[in-house]
C-alpha cells in the first residue's frame, strides 16, 4: 500500500489500483454525508479533481493519483457515505483505476513514511 500527501491510499490489485482515503483523513473530515464519484470509463489525469467528499463541515476534493482510466466506482458510497468514517481503508474504497503510467507510485509514501508525514 502507498500513500499520497493528499491522504489517499493506493492499493495495487492485479493490474488495477484501488484508491481510498486514510483513517486520518476521514477523522479530519468528520461525518461524511455525500460522495460524488467519477463515471466509469472516464480518462483522468494525475492531480485532476475527480471525487468530491462532503462532510457536515465542508466539501473536499480527491485528486487522481495517476494518469489512467476509471474502471469501477464504489456504488455503496452513494447510499451510505458514512462508510467513509466507519471503514475508510476497507469497504469505503472510492474507485479502481487502470493506470497508464505507474512511475509516480515510486514517489508516493510507504506506511512508515506516511505515519511520519501525519506526525
Amino acid at each position, binding site marked *: 500500500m502507498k500513500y499520497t500527501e493528499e491522504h489517499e491510499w493506493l492499493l495495487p490489485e492485479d493490474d488495477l489500483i484501488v484508491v481510498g482515503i486514510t483513517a486520518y483523513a476521514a477523522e479530519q473530515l*468528520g461525518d461524511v454525508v*455525500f460522495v*460524488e464519484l467519477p463515471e466509469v470509463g472516464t480518462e483522468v489525469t494525475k492531480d485532476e479533481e475527480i471525487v468530491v467528499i462532503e462532510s457536515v*463541515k465542508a466539501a473536499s476534493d480527491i485528486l487522481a493519483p495517476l494518469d489512467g482510466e476509471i474502471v469501477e466506482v464504489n456504488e455503496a458510497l452513494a447510499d451510505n457515505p458514512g462508510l467513509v468514517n466507519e471503514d475508510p481503508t476497507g469497504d469505503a474504497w472510492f474507485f479502481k483505476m487502470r493506470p497508464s503510467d505507474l512511475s509516480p507510485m515510486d514517489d508516493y509514501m510507504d506506511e512508515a513514511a506516511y505515519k511520519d508525514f501525519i506526525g
Partner: protein
Amino acid sequence: MTDTPKRTPLYDLHVELGGKMVDFAGWEMPVQYPMGIMGEHKQCREKAALFDVSHMGQVILRGNDIGAKLEKLCPQVFSTLPEGKARYGFFTNAQGGIMDDLIVSNAGEYFFVVVNAALRHQDIPHMAAHLDGVEVTEIFDRALVAVQGPSAEDVVGRLCPAARDLKFMETMLGEIDGVDCRISRLGYTGEDGYEISIPEGEAIRISRLFLAHEDCEPAGLGARDSLRLEAGLCLYGNDIDNGTSPIEASLLWAIQKRRREEGGFPGAERILKEISKGASRKLVGIKPEGRAPARQHVEIQNLDGDTIGEITSGGFGPTVGAPVAMGYVASAHAAPGGKVNLIIRGKVQPAEIVALPFVAQNYKR
C-alpha cells in the same frame, strides 16, 4: 482581523473536553468535540447539549424609557415589553437592510441585550450614539452558555428549580449553586432551552454541573449551525445582512402590528412598502432531491435555466437525514412546492421550494 483570537471563560474546558478549536469572528471557539457534529446535533434534538456562546456581545442598558428609545433603531415594539420578557429584534439601516439581529430583555432595573459576536464593535457604538440618556455598558466579565434540547429543563431546573417555570422568551435572575446567573428561556436551535449568563470565574464550574447531568453533552459551532438551519433561523452574514430587508428575509412575524402601522424606524419607507406590495425576492427553504449538499452561493435556476436566486445557508440536516438549505429566490418562484434547479459544481441538481422550518420548533410556550 489581525488580532490573535480571543478566548472565552470556557476555553480551558473546551480543550479539556477535546474541542477542535477554530477562529470564529475573532474568537477561538470549538467547532466540535470528539462526538462529532452529527452526534452533537442529534444529542441536542433528543436530549440536551451545552454550547459556549460567550463570544456574543452582552450589553446592559440603563436609563429611562429604554424600550421607546430602542424603537428608534428597531422595527419592534419594546416600549411595552413586560419585565421578565425577551423579544427577538433587529437594527435596521436607512435603506431598510438589517444591521444585526439581537435579543432584547426587560430585566426590570435595566435592559439586557445580546448581539452577534462579529458586530459587537458596530452595535455598541450604534446604541451609545442613538439612545439619548441611556448608559450602554458592554459586559466583559460574564460567560454566556446555552443549554438546549428536550432535557434542558431538567439539566437547568434541578440546579435552579424556578427555571422550570419560565416559558419561552422569559428571563429571570436565578441562583445556581450559589452563583447569581441570568437565566433566559430561549436559544437558537429550534429546541426548548436556556441561555445562562454566568460570572466568568464560575463559568467552568457551573458548566460542569450542567454536563454532570447524564443527558447533557458539549456541542460546538458546527452543530449549532446545522441545528439553526433545520429550525429555519437566519444566520447574520449568511441569510441576512445590510442589503436584505426583513420582509425579504421572511421576518415580518418579528415586526409587531403597531410598528407596521406607524413606521418610525430606520428604513421604514422600504419596509412598509414591501409589507403592502411585497418584496422582489424572498428567503425560502430549499430541499435538494439528491444527496449533494447545496452550500452558500450555489446558484438557483428555474426549470428554463434562468437564474432566480442563490443559496445563503446550506448543508446536511442530521435530523432531516438529507441536505437542507435556505436562499433567496425571485418572489414569483417563492411558493412552497415549486421545482427549481441548483447548480452544484457545474451539475444541475433538482430541488424543491419548501416551507420553513425543516424541523418543527419545540419551544415551551
